[in-house]
């Protein structure tokens, strides 16, 4: 089995990661609302209600229950389903999960994983369409992941479950259905804190955050047709950020476009821009371009909604400004 692969969608890869880790370690449990609905039905059958906890609609508390369980020997995965619900649980995530180890002088550890999905481009309107990476990026004590491929989703989630610190795992529902070959190696982890160079190039750097990757690659394809070689980096881990991979690329290309579906002000893109303009100032030849969501809420109307998020065309437009 070591070297074989299976075709899995991004969501299936996540469920497989959970299955493998639950098989490996009986202290791994899963909690969330309607736990069987979002793909995990087979896990309920395999592991039973003791380890698969269907919670009441009490987000702050069931995340906190995860914290308490993590402090006392379990390794809970808590599914916050839709990322807009992070705001209901941010108290327990930030004031407790992120701080408890520190505040007890490292007497405690918090091996907790919070899964949550960004539900944009889905006509669910403003109260369901948040991409709140920046909320957690600013909080010390958390690791924040946002994979863009099925393999990374599996490998990063497994790494997160084995990690002794609290990890927030952002899924992108626009990728849930995307299939690819995923390794069946039960010990293959994707390292937390490492970005992936998905395409190398020397003319400009495109850093893609979370689900923006397909659009970044599509844009790079078009540019390649015009003889422009873009390097495409998939950030994968938001915190801790892999500055090295980004700075190395910008040192080579001197031009940077960052693609991020969070709201532009205070975005992940802003942080990357700040780091690069601080630490790679001398190599930057053109102003950094952020392709992000403008400061408006997400409308219900699907056509309007779509225009607010990353697309090949919006990326190309940004590239044209600096090429």
């Amino acid at each position, binding site marked *: 089995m070591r070297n074989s692969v299976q075709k899995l969608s991004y969501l299936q890869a996540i469920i497989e990661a959970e299955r493998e880790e639950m098989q490996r370690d009986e202290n791994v449990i899963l909690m969330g609302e*309607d736990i*069987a609905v979002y793909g995990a039905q087979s896990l309920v059958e395999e592991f039973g209600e003791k380890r698969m906890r269907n919670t009441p609609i009490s987000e702050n508390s069931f995340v906190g229950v995860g914290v308490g369980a993590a402090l006392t020997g379990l390794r809970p995965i808590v599914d916050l389903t839709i990322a807009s619900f992070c705001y209901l649980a941010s108290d327990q995530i930030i004031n407790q999960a992120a701080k408890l180890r520190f505040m007890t002088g490292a007497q405690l550890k918090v091996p907790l994983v919070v899964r949550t999905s960004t539900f944009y481009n889905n*006509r669910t309107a403003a109260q369901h369409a948040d991409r709140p990476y920046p909320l957690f990026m600013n909080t010390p004590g958390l690791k924040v992941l946002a994979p863009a491929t099925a393999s990374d989703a599996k490998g990063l989630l497994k790494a997160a479950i084995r990690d002794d610190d609290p990890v927030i795992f952002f899924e992108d529902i626009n990728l849930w259905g995307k299939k690819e070959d995923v390794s069946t190696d039960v010990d293959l982890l994707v390292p937390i804190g490492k970005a992936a160079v998905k395409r190398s190039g020397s003319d400009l750097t495109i850093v893609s955050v979370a689900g923006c990757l397909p659009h970044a690659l599509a844009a790079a394809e078009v540019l390649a047709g015009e003889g422009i070689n873009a390097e495409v980096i998939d950030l994968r881990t938001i915190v801790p950020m892999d500055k090295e991979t980004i700075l190395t690329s910008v040192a080579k290309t001197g031009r940077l476009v960052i693609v991020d579906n969070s709201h532009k002000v205070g975005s992940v893109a802003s942080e990357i821009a700040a780091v690069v303009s601080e630490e790679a100032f001398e190599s930057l030849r053109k102003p950094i371009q952020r392709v992000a969501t403008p400061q408006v809420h997400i409308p219900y109307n699907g056509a309007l909604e779509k225009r607010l998020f990353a697309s090949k065309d919006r990326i190309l437009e940004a590239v044209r400004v600096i090429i």
Partner: protein
Amino acid sequence: MLLIRRFEEALIAHNPVGHLSIGQEGAIVGACMALRDDDYVTGTHRSHGHPIGKGADINPLMAEVFGKKTGICKGLGGSMHLTDTSRGLIGESAIVGGGFPIATGAGLSIQVRETDQVSLCFFGDGAANQGTFSESINMAAIWKLPVIYFCENNGYAVTTSVEKSHGQPDIARRADGYGIPGIIVDGQDAEAVHAVTQEAVDRARAGEGPTLIEAKTYRFDEHSNRLAIPIEYRSKEEIEYHRNERDPISLYRATLLSRDLLADVERIEQEVAKTIDAAVEFARESPEPDMEDVWDCMFSNPINFPAYEGEL
């Protein structure tokens, strides 16, 4: 009730989006009948019934679910957020439990401004497990605010039954912990719902504080007609029983017929059909909203905020 039913049946046929109230119309309409036009209402993700119950215009509601510029929320809010402020609606929260504090705040506002309005908060059985439920009810209790907390207990939150998610299954029984009355009523009997709600409204207007009402009702369709449910969390028999024996519309129709009102019933049925057809037509033919609407609706007072400049 019939208007809600036909509105949603039209959605199933023409624009299958959203969370339907079919089966719960008796609770909704019974409650709304006890309210004046200027009373406040907060609702939920299952938002179609509340404005219709409060007498809102159907065309802008239908257009909203279709995402059109003529929608009551300009196509920005959508199926989970049919809010018509002209009928006292002040938000349909798709964040489960989000309406408790807002309805309570409307009650505070009424008390401070010294009007004799009331505020009614629709919520589901699942929502009762949000912390905002107890926090808000407690605040209304200490300040004796004119708020009616009205639970549409349809037995389930998505796939999770009340029995599996509540320490004990009667939500109204929690009222005693805050020192306020808690009342259980048959939600399929619109007149019974009307009666208990009217009592609570009278209490509220008299300055005697909040009431918690729990209407036992049932959702005939799936949680949302956009979500595939891979498990059987309630039996087919249970569903069939409710559809056949416990439909609030059939039950009320029978009541009206027993009062010799067949002619009126048939006239209303025809009128409703026409209203709905016209609304679908209106919604279909309405234009889409523009990106400018998106920017325009952000701020009342956009000092120094950028306006839309056509960049997307």
